């Protein structure tokens, strides 16, 4: 048994030294901890550039926006995070509504159009994304597509629609639509989709893939998933379609950032937020490898081939309302059996 005890002892020592090694890592005099719901592959160059420009070290924890939000809630005032960068305005709103995000300065908020921030100044948008209908170009011509998202309940689309009800952007779209048109109309629409044998998918990527394979002909997603998949499969027979001006199906959403209210490093955190709204960072967000979102400050060009943001006319809706409007949306999805 001697051999075994030696092995065990060595392992315990190794484990302890691993643990203490991490604990005693030298702490930077100026460093920020970022909780990033934005993928490392898409934003790491921005992080590196910030450190190079400012000398402020960044410690970035990457996970999904919602997972990080639940962690922020459980950490409360003990959070090690200084910055929360999220894909979802709804999640930002929910975290902000719990008092976990500090107020941003008016100057910061003023850098982006008013519809991409909130009046409470808890977060500010870092990029724009639009809800769209993706369609299979082998099966459909542009002219056959519905003019409004309401039109998807027509028998014409029976068995041909894909949605992702667990997706936060879909829920945001539904919440905004409930706010604008009332519960009854949206519930009727959901029931109409159900009668049309709408197919449910786990996320936006799988919806676009299903449209590409022809499992369904159209799907409700955000505009940039198409470009992620086109990078991998250039001949994917899928394109984006926008509904008529003002249609709720064209809702424009934002990814955004906020400063965690328990931070001791408010000045450095403010610098990071301002950096994300700088020309260089906005250009990278809009045109970096794999990127296809809309920049939010003036004078930064969007990705070539993308429809101009100013020509996308969504419904008149204030994204700051989402923290309140998501609950009725999710409850309706539960009641109608789209979620369980």
């Amino acid at each position: 048994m001697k051999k075994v005890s030696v092995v065990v002892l060595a392992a315990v020592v190794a484990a302890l030294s691993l643990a203490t090694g991490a604990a005693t890592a030298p702490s930077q005099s100026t460093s920020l901890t970022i909780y990033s719901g934005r993928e490392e592959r898409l934003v790491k160059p921005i992080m590196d550039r910030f450190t190079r420009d400012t000398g402020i070290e960044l410690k970035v924890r990457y996970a999904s926006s919602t997972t990080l939000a639940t962690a922020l809630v459980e950490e409360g005032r003990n959070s090690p995070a200084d910055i929360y960068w999220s894909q979802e305005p709804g999640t930002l709103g929910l975290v902000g509504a719990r008092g976990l995000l500090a107020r941003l300065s008016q100057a910061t908020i003023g850098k982006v159009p008013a519809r991409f921030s909130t009046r409470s100044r808890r977060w500010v948008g870092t990029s724009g994304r639009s809800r769209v209908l993706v369609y299979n170009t082998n099966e459909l011509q542009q002219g056959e597509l519905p003019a409004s998202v309401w039109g998807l309940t027509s028998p014409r689309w029976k068995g041909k629609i894909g949605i992702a009800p667990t997706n936060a952007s879909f829920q945001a779209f539904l919440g905004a639509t409930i706010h604008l048109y009332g519960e009854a109309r949206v519930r009727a629409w959901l029931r109409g989709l159900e009668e049309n044998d709408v197919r449910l998918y786990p996320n936006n990527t799988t919806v676009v893939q299903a449209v590409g394979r022809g499992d369904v002909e159209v799907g409700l997603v955000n505009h940039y998933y198409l470009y992620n998949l086109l990078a991998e499969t250039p001949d994917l027979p899928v394109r984006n379609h926008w509904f008529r001006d003002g249609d709720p199906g064209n809702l424009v959403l934002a990814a955004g950032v906020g400063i965690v209210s328990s931070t001791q490093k408010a000045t450095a955190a403010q610098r990071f937020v301002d950096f994300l709204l700088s020309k260089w960072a906005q250009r990278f967000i809009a045109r970096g490898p794999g990127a296809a979102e809309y920049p939010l400050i003036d004078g930064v060009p969007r990705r070539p081939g993308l429809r101009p943001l100013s020509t996308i006319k969504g419904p008149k809706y204030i994204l700051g309302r989402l923290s309140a409007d998501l609950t009725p949306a999710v409850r309706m999805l539960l009641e109608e059996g789209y979620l369980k």
Partner: protein
Amino acid sequence: MTAAGAATAVSSHGRRAPRLLVTLAGLVALGAILPVAYLALRALSADAAARALAPASTTVELALDTAVLAFGVVVATLVVGVPLAWLVVRTDLPGRRLWGIAASLPLVIPSFVAALALLGAFAPRGLVQEALEPLGVERLPEVTGYWGALVALTLSTYPYVYLLAAAGLRSADASAEEAARSLGAGRFRVLTRVTLPAIRPSLAAASLLVALYVLSDFGVVSLMGYSTLTTGIYVRYESLLALESAALLALALLALALAIVLVASRFRLRGPVYRSTPGAGRAGKVTNLGWWRWPALVFCATLIGLFLVLPVGVLAWWSFSADPITGRAGVDWSAAVGSASMATATALVAAIVVLPAAVLAWRYPSALSRWLERLTLLPSALPGIAVALALVFVGARIGAPVYQSLGLLLVAYVIRFMPYGLASTRASLDAVSPRLEEAARSLGRRPVGAMTAVVLPLARSGVLAGAALVFLSTIKELPATLLLKPIGFETLATEIWKGTSIGAYSEVAPSALLLIVIAAPLVYLLSWRNAWELGATE
């Protein structure tokens, strides 16, 4: 009854459980209870709005759907795993050592990767349909929902049954079979009346692990579009940060898990199954398959083809293309080192910390020892995010340098996966007669000496199998890793996640393949060493 009171309680063998053993087992159970206590705390603060998001009708419906899936997967894994173990351990199947290794490997394929691969292969117009296109196959039926989840989960979990059944068959007593044969029982009768009952503890333990795994799984069921309590928990966390509503569903999940644990212990406790011979035991007789080797080979080839070759093939197919975004192909070697070292540390720590509870339950059975064991099993039924948030809740309050250190991550891993070590160790202890320990004691061995010199060597195959299961589970863990790892520390699972989160499967494949490569030597060592030590090779 308090712990101190129980320590002086007299066991059914007429001996008091040593106070130290009870204390140690109690401490470990306390760690296991942490997530349960956290969830109870959250559920208690649920107001009417939180309860409205988790109504009883939905909870019951989800619990039933979860139970039906768990039952289906348990049956499927037994149907697949037991014959496979018997063929590999007890017959002259050609190439059985290789089959044995191949049979264990799917355990390291993260279940959501398995689901992605199955979906990629069997989608109506996926890779398999493409391959069959020349034969005029234009569309395949879809593999989603219940049956899709069943296949993908069977793929990920049947190695539990295979490994524990094989360990049980190796350490099972040959003399009982020989006695049965000499009394005129036919081969089939020996198999069903002697051999299988002898490994019943192993099968009960493995089925329990499979069921708890199904309860905790999110990756497969979400991709296959099948709703369970775990997807319900995720919906509530992710859509509304409704921590209290999620906790209510999580408590329902724990209740279901407890019911399954109780059912499993009934199966295990039906009479003693000790080996009659002391010492290292002889291997069971190797059955000459004769003509039957051909159907047996087809059986093995079909299973390995579906559960290993197919997913690995899809991964290899994906890995052909370089990542279009970063333009790089290949793997992060530091992530591989991170995965392997943390999984090794977790396996060793888990193997050690479950010993008090296992020995207590085996040697001094009492209500207390049974409940300590059951409590220690429960966290493995919880989705990883719930365990992770429990440690976020506690860890953030302790703060640096504990929070988000490798030490805390190790604790999270041990809490999540020690049930695999416990169940496996218990199953092999069940086959050791307590009389052997009594004999060692009466010959002057001290309690610890009797355990280490006599009992544990006999339970070795189960302890090793348990450590391997913990290793193979830890190496693919994701939710706790993302929230609790030190920043900058990467594992292969986090690398895989980075790719799948934006649908870049070409980035996923190399890391997933590397997971399998890392695990292969361990699996080989495990099956080979066991076989060699018990003299079960050629």
